């Protein structure tokens, strides 16, 4: 196991969770959400927390934020018990982007980012030079300078999310926690946000913890995965290790789904063998994918070939050769299909 140990001398653990039991206490009734949660959160890394809905990810976040202490077990911030830190100290160490929609349209972007300085300012909240330079740096790091004087009501969801990240950065904690920051965003924004978070983790040496359901993007960007399966302990590790050890399948309690090492995607177990298609991989994979989806198979004596420039699908069936200009044409032609 020694050689798979990911920690080298450069990674510093900043938050350490030890055998947490999470849940709610209501009188004598205890509602247990999750148990056996142990983790190390390291600076300079992007960590993704993945798990099915209702497994207790939000409760774990609340425990990390100090808003809902665990039933038992302890979280340590650099060796100090988290529960012994004051609200204000905690706010200076951990900043968060929640799923709550901020509806205050009257604030400008600069004013919202300035709110992140609240744990650092005096009772009136007046900004000093250090506060202002921190705000400017956060706006710059998230590339939202062009939005500075816009009001929140005028922003798109993607822009708003970046601004919320800027606000969290301005809070200047060493830990940044984000609860599903890419939900409701379009594809480009999902990639952009996750790469932005990765850059922040690396460049600003922060510990970034992201709850996400985007396995694809998480695999591309995360340094560490925390898998939180139903009813079993938290599993942590380098994403690729978890794929190779097939622990990634813990996310898929459904018997019919599994994570395919070949395609890097979630697939159904009862899928058919892909048909044999000749040609460049970049082209054949899409033809195969389309055929798999439709459940189409080839007869033994058929041969399928894909030819680029111009694109052509060529089907040899015995002596006959059929040519199609697109997958749609190929599917719509009934002549070659088996009865």
């Amino acid at each position, binding site marked *: 196991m020694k050689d798979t140990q990911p920690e080298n001398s450069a990674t510093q653990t900043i938050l350490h969770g030890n055998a947490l039991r999470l849940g709610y206490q209501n009188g004598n009734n205890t509602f247990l959400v999750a148990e056996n949660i142990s983790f190390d959160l390291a600076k300079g890394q992007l960590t993704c927390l993945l798990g099915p809905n209702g497994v207790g990810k939000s409760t774990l976040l609340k425990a990390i*934020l100090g*808003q809902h202490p665990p039933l038992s077990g302890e979280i340590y911030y650099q060796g100090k018990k988290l529960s012994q830190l*004051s*609200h*204000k*100290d*905690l*706010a*200076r160490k*951990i*900043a*968060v982007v*929640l799923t*709550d929609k*901020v*509806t*205050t*349209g*009257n*604030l400008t972007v*600069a*004013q*919202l980012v300035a*709110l*992140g300085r*609240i*744990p650092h*300012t005096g*009772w*009136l*909240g007046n900004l000093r030079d250090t506060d202002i330079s921190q705000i400017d740096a956060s706006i710059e790091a998230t590339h939202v300078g062009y939005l500075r*004087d816009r009001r929140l*009501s005028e922003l798109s969801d993607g822009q708003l999310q970046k601004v919320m990240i800027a606000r969290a950065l301005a*809070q200047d904690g060493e830990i940044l926690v984000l609860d599903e920051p890419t939900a409701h965003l379009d594809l480009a924004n999902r990639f952009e946000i996750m790469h932005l978070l990765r850059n922040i983790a690396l460049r600003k040496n922060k510990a970034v913890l992201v709850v996400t359901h985007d396995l694809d993007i998480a695999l591309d960007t995360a340094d560490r995965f925390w898998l939180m399966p139903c009813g079993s302990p938290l599993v942590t590790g380098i994403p690729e290790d978890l794929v190779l050890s097939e622990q990634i399948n813990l996310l898929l309690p459904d018997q019919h789904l599994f994570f395919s090492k070949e395609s890097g995607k979630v697939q159904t177990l009862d899928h058919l063998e892909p048909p044999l298609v000749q040609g460049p991989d970049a082209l054949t994979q899409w033809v195969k994918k389309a055929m798999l989806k439709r459940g189409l198979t080839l007869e033994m004596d058929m041969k399928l070939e894909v030819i680029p420039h111009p694109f052509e699908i060529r089907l040899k069936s015995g002596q006959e050769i059929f040519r199609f200009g697109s997958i749609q044409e190929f599917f719509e032609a009934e002549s070659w299909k088996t009865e």
Partner: protein
Amino acid sequence: MKNKLTYPLLFFLGCLGCLLLFLANLGIGSVTIPFQEIVGRMLGGSFSRNTWEIILFEYRLPKALTAILAGITLSVSGLQMQTFFRNPLAGPFVLGISSGAGLGVALLVMAGSAFGWSLYAGAAGLWAVVAAATLGAILVLLLMSLTAWKVRDSMTLLIVGLMFGSAASAIVSVLAYFSEAEQLKVYTVWSMGSLGGTSGQQLHAFLIASLIGLIPVLAFIKSYNAMLMGEGYASSMGINIHRLRWAMIISTGILAGCATAFCGPIAFIGIAVPHMARLLFKTGDHRILFPAAALLGAMVLLACDAVSQLPGSAQTLPINAVTSLVGAPMVIWLILRRNFSKEF
């Protein structure tokens, strides 16, 4: 940051407008005192008629000062409620404070008479009404505090507050049903609000209570800014939500409770004025919004009072009717604006 110059300008204009309204308010009534005479008197001269002296100092000046105080207290407590509950329709009375005060007065006036007491009449009567309203407001406040202690969810607190208000109103209805016409009228007149009932000592008491009620607002002004983003974010920025909730309950209890005790329930100022402040000052920053709402509240109530005097006639309208007539269209207009919820 670019608005650094416009805020002082707006506040200067506001103060100027407030002063003008104050002077106009002193002049308007069943007897009209000319504007230049008032200014002359204020600068140390004397009136050309002696009756004006008495009208101004015995009646109009306390009334105008009461209007300013009530305007400030109601708007500031309304703004606190709206920000804390993140609800644009919250007001100073959503936690049942005015209903509690009303219940206190109803008990004094209507139930008292059942035992043959007439505590509300005579010179001590004014203080008795104030005391009854204060006790009623404190009772509701205590119940709300108990709830706040038990319940952690703000929306639940809001609903419970509304329920307390309804229950108090229902008890008042029962009392009203069984009471004599004379007592009913005394209660009804109280419930229509009046700025003219305070003088001398009462004004002092009102002023001191208002200043005490404003202390928690000053102490927690930064927390209200954090609350703009909702409880989750505020708490992640080190704001103790539970403590803020207590500060808000105590502050609005004192501010709105006093205004109701001295002037009766005055509707709509607490809901409409914070929105006016947001619209005019175009900011969400409570360091600007609280003074802005206070200034506008004073101005609006002075203006409403001037209107209620029906200049040129001997009749007056109840102040609560005027504020409702001004406030209801205002709130409707706000709601019909397309981006109302976004500007909130």
